[in-house]
């Protein structure tokens, strides 16, 4: 039997095996890097909860009762990869489309072609019962600056498709509505838009909840607003059901969305119909901790029902800075020939911060995109982690010894010249020729003394 030589290639060599393993690991890592885009790992904020308001209710498209459009809105971020539908239908399938086209609510003339569908999935709609059906779609990078719309359609053979209000509460045929003798069978299909991360930050669009019925117009809105807060308010007013308007026609009280100044009154004669108003508070002064600090009061009225405002009356009083929330949903429900019931849901969403958003361009080369996603995964912290730091300093402000300094600084912060004077010196207005130069002279003296003191203090600094 021939003995193997020491350096024979057939001889087991541990060092070679280790060396080979090292290259194998490197190669596997490189392969993994290239395969990265196909895995749902990169972290990007999808956006916060979106709640549907009445204006976003699905509407018939081009008088086609089988195609409906739902406005999703803007400020959507992240990557959309899946759409889930809550559907209750005897049979059939549903088509859908995600569009960024300039859908015009006023004329219902969407630019997107009803014949072209982004997704045309035959969903496994259960013949009985209700179920959530999800469809994966080609990844769609959402641009927060765009408005998104979702379009639904279903086969003509499908007699009825009902959407769900929420996953546990399904809409029934009794909740369908009729307009111009046309029965609209699809109403508010409840769906979720899923992306990265899939949960719990998936976008959910829910049917507005009915809140407390309010008896008069003046009560419409939220209380607690003080007119000291300056404002930019967008008001959208439209009709959703009347004998002289198509169901999908929307009217605006002024040209589209308008900026309302504080305490301004906008008057417009509106044609017959029923009207609802919703207010988007674009800006809100600090602190953001109270709805009542920020939410405007909105009053609406209509000549047929409210003689106090014979021309139709919309008034907005409120307020100011970064976009923080939308008042949702406020809807008007027509309840009879001579009365209007105003319903609102007290649920509002307030977002006081903007999450870190780093998205990788899907059009980038594969390697570049892989590196981008790797970078996001490794170095971009989640909002939850960042939020843990938001309140870390707050408890220390009231504890000794920091609390004393903080309280004293706060007290000095209220040191101003606009408080109520302790006394009023009358008759000095006529002496302005004397007090004016005296004021300027004293000011100059104070600044000179301050400069001398500062110079000497620094010169004789004894540390």
């Amino acid at each position: 039997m021939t003995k193997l030589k020491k350096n024979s290639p057939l001889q087991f060599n541990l060092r070679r095996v280790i060396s080979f393993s090292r290259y194998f690991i490197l190669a596997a890592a490189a392969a993994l890097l290239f395969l990265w885009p196909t895995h749902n790992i990169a972290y990007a904020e999808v956006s916060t909860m979106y709640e549907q308001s009445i204006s976003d209710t699905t509407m018939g498209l081009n008088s086609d009762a089988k195609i409906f459009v739902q406005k999703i809105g803007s400020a959507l971020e992240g990557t959309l990869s899946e759409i889930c539908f809550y559907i209750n239908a005897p049979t059939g399938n549903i088509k859908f489309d995600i569009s960024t086209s300039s859908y015009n609510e006023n004329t219902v003339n969407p630019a997107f072609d009803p014949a072209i569908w982004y997704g045309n999935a035959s969903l496994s709609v259960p013949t009985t019962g209700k179920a959530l059906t999800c469809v994966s779609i080609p990844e769609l990078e959402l641009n927060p600056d765009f408005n998104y719309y979702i379009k639904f359609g279903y086969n003509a053979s499908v007699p009825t498709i009902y959407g769900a209000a929420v996953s546990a509460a399904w809409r029934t045929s009794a909740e369908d509505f009729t307009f111009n003798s046309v029965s609209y069978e699809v109403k508010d299909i409840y769906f979720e838009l899923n992306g990265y991360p899939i949960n719990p930050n998936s976008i959910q669009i829910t049917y507005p909840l009915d809140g407390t019925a309010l008896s008069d117009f003046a009560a419409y809105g939220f209380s607690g607003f003080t007119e000291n807060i300056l404002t930019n308010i967008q008001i959208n007013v439209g009709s959703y059901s009347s004998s002289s308007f198509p169901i999908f026609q929307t009217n605006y009280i002024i040209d589209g969305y308008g900026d309302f100044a504080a305490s301004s009154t906008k008057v417009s004669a509106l044609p017959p119909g029923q009207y609802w108003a919703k207010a988007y508070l674009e800006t809100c002064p600090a602190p953001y901790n109270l709805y009542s600090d920020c939410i405007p009061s909105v009053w609406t009225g209509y000549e047929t029902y409210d003689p106090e405002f014979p021309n139709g009356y919309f008034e907005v009083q409120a307020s100011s800075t970064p976009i923080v929330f939308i008042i949702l949903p406020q809807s008007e429900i027509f309840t009879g020939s001579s009365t209007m019931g105003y319903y609102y849901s007290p649920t509002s969403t307030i977002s006081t911060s903007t999450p870190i958003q780093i998205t990788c361009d899907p059009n980038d080369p594969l390697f570049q995109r892989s590196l981008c996603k790797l970078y996001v995964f490794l170095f971009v912290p989640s909002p939850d982690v960042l939020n843990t730091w938001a309140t870390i300093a707050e408890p220390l402000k009231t504890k000794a010894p920091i609390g004393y300094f903080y309280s004293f600084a706060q007290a000095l912060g209220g040191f101003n010249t606009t408080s109520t004077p302790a006394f009023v010196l009358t008759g000095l207005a006529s002496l302005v020729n004397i007090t004016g130069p005296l004021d300027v002279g004293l000011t100059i003296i104070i600044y000179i003394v301050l400069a001398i003191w500062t110079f000497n203090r620094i010169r004789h600094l004894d540390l």
Partner: protein
Amino acid sequence: MITAALLLTWYGLVLIITSPIRLLPDVSLPAGIVSSISSSNNYIAAIYQILPYTIAALLIALGIVITIEGFIILFKIINWVIRKIPTIS
């Protein structure tokens, strides 16, 4: 992931370091100080009606003086604390 882990670690350290302070009861300024600031505020507001520039200059001067003196005291305190460390003289 790496940044998140670092942030959470630092957060835990800060919590541990500040825990003795967090356990202390809340403090507030004595009522006399608060009322004295409020009173001086009211007197200043009265004079402000006559000599607005002078009052504004006084408040600015007051702020500058407090800021400079505050920094000097803070610097001395930090120096004093550092000198208490055995290896530093």
